[in-house]
């Protein structure tokens, strides 16, 4: 496997992350949302590269990695299945929609890593182009200057600190130039929908949206022939959502080694996490914090452990 093979993985990962998470961050964070977006992309990148090059047998680390991947995947699945339920299938419960997606993810995982890589390479350009066509018109309202301010919230500070950990990527990659290329590409892809989201938010200033992602999709204009294109866009990003979930499932299943049931077990756990009731479950704020902190911890701990154990 060469580093070039990861390029479409990273692309789709960042694209989906950007589309479904970052509008919320921009809405909630407002002025420092863009910083949060950048750090989030970096962390997603680190997680992806880290999972591909992971070489540790430490059980605590493996358990932590398993927990972070599972929770991240479960929460992402929750957000995504709720959106699908809201826009496309209102009469279906979101757990059923999540289960359908997990079934497909399980099928894809059973086909091996090569199939996943090829799928990502096959769909990345198409998905990216389709989403770009739909979302770029929404970016015209964005005022970038107001977004570039100091971070105010603690978890965003931690996330911002992760930007400084970018050089640590060198521990996990074989080729520095490729690493740099992929990083910039991912940042560009993540920032693009964020600018579009910012444009939507700024245009609706004074009317906070409960569903900034949907607002983002409403603002697009793919074709005059198709109405309710938010459904179409959401359907298209099913491809990148699949890829992100399959990456999370692979990460979560990694500690189980070569056991046959690992993907099925992790799928069931992910479904349970995604189906947890809101009051007793993990809120979106805690999820962002967990994902950001968890991924930031991994980027610090592993190099230190490696150095110490040498």
């Amino acid at each position, binding site marked *: 496997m060469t580093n070039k093979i990861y390029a479409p993985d990273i692309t789709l990962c960042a694209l989906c992350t950007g589309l479904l998470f970052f509008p919320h961050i921009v809405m909630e964070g407002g002025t420092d949302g863009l910083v949060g977006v950048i750090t989030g992309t970096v962390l997603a990148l680190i997680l992806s590269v880290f999972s591909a090059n992971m070489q540790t047998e430490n059980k605590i680390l493996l358990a932590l990695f398993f927990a972070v991947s599972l929770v991240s995947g479960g929460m992402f699945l929750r957000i995504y299945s709720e959106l699908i339920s809201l826009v496309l*299938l209102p009469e279906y419960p979101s757990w059923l929609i999540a289960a*359908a997606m997990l079934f*497909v993810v399980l*099928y894809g995982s059973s086909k091996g890593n090569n*199939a*996943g890589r*090829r799928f990502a390479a096959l769909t990345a350009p198409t998905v990216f182009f389709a989403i770009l066509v739909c979302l770029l018109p929404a970016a015209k309202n964005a005022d970038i200057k107001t977004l570039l301010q100091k971070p105010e919230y603690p978890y965003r500070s931690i996330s911002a600190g992760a930007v400084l950990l970018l050089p640590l990527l060198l521990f996990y990659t074989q080729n520095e130039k490729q690493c740099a290329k992929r990083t910039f590409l991912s940042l560009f892809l993540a920032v693009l929908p964020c600018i579009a989201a910012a444009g939507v938010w700024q245009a609706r200033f004074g009317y906070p949206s409960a569903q900034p992602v949907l607002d983002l999709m409403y603002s697009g204009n793919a074709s005059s022939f198709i*109405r309710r294109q938010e459904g*179409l866009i959401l359907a298209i990003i099913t491809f990148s959502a699949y890829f992100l979930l399959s990456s999370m499932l692979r990460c979560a299943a990694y500690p189980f080694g070569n056991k046959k049931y690992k993907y099925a077990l992790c799928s069931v756990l992910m479904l349970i996490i995604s189906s947890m009731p809101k009051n007793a479950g993990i809120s979106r704020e805690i999820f962002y914090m967990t994902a950001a902190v968890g991924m930031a911890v991994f980027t610090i701990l592993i190099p230190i452990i490696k150095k110490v154990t040498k």
Partner: protein
Amino acid sequence: MRKVSKNLSENIKYINEKFKDCGDLVSREFTAGNGRKVFIAYFDDLSDREMLERQVIHGFMVDVLFEQNTENALITADIKENNDIDSCIEEILSGNAAVFVEKREKAVIVSAKKVPSRGVNKPDAEISVQGPQDAFTESMRTNTVLIRRRIRSSRLKCIQLKLGRTTLTDTAVMYLDGTADMNVVNKIITKLKNIETDSILDSGYTEQFLKTKRTLFPLVQMTERPDKTAAGLIEGRIAIVCDNSPFVILAPAVLFSFYQASEDYYQTWQTASFVRMIRIIAGLAAFTLPGLYVAVAMYDPSMLPAELSLHIAGARTGVPVSTMTEVTALELAFETLREAGVRMPAAVGGTLGVVGGIIIGQAAVDAGLVSPMVVIVTAITGICGFSIPSQQLTSAYRLIKFAVIAVSAVLGIYGFMLSLICVFIHLCSLESFGLPYIYPLGRKSGFKDTFIRLPLKKQSENEPAFSPDMYNSRKNGQ
């Protein structure tokens, strides 16, 4: 292995025992010019009787010098000696004649095949308006000749095997030395040799034995065109020619192979590219259109323009079944009609198509059993399937479309997308003798003859496309 005996009587007895109750076996014992006894055996009408009488029997009778060199008694061009009597029996079964001579431990096998077969006709399954009009026949030798006619190079190798314990079907593996990947060639030969079956009656049998994965998609390509086979060999592919089959197997085969027609290369690149794009879009529609219609009509009719969605809703007024049932029933009816059309004699088949397609379809709409939009969707799906040059790929799409319809009926456009993901993942997981099935998708190069066909000047024949070694070296070099 049972050796040929010096005692002629033993050989005759063995042959007669093996071919007991075979009334079509011709055997004759006679005395040669030098007084030695000779025995010849062959199958009537499988071997050239006139040639054997004229060249072989007459040759033995008049030539007295064959004591030193048996071959000199015979005027035929193709003879060989064999000391294994069971192997001689196989040669007799293949249409050759076996000649046993008293006091000699080796029999002489004379090539005298005269297998009845039809002449070289036009292709039935892969019709083209422009280009060669010859097609393969049931004779393996004729087929290899048709290929050699097009590739006049000593690099074109032909390895012959016999497949099937009972049928002992002659099979030739042809490849271009220096172009084809020898790992693939050896892999194919090994697989063929390991086929454990009594009969190989057609190349379709061989195709199924070569398949390594459970999939509806074809992993090798079947063709009845010599020009397509020759082009495939030049690209680095391997051809498997089976006796008694007018279809030759080409391996490896990737998804885009099944969208390429011979005619693409006999027209201008602009026309060919346009037609190729239509085929690819039609291929996608062949298994997605019914499912997409079901998803949109059942769950999201508001996605369509208001006039169209009202029209669809109005057309469905009075239809007693759901959209999914409507679409499934009509697709099944179309498949039944297609199957009936294939089995019917040519004189009746055309009439049946008109009766079934137009009259019954119209009657069903008038009776309110189905809506006109579903008839149109089914018809377009069928036409899209017919536009794909390969029947193998069309067959896969015909089955997949029912699964897509079912999932779309349950989960709407979300289910439709999930089913597409499953299909694409499955395609991405397939490999044909080491080559990814979706090659060259996902790569930066190799697109000169996929979605469009670039001018022939820009397609370098020094870069064989079907060599897994080439693919791997490019991948590692990226």
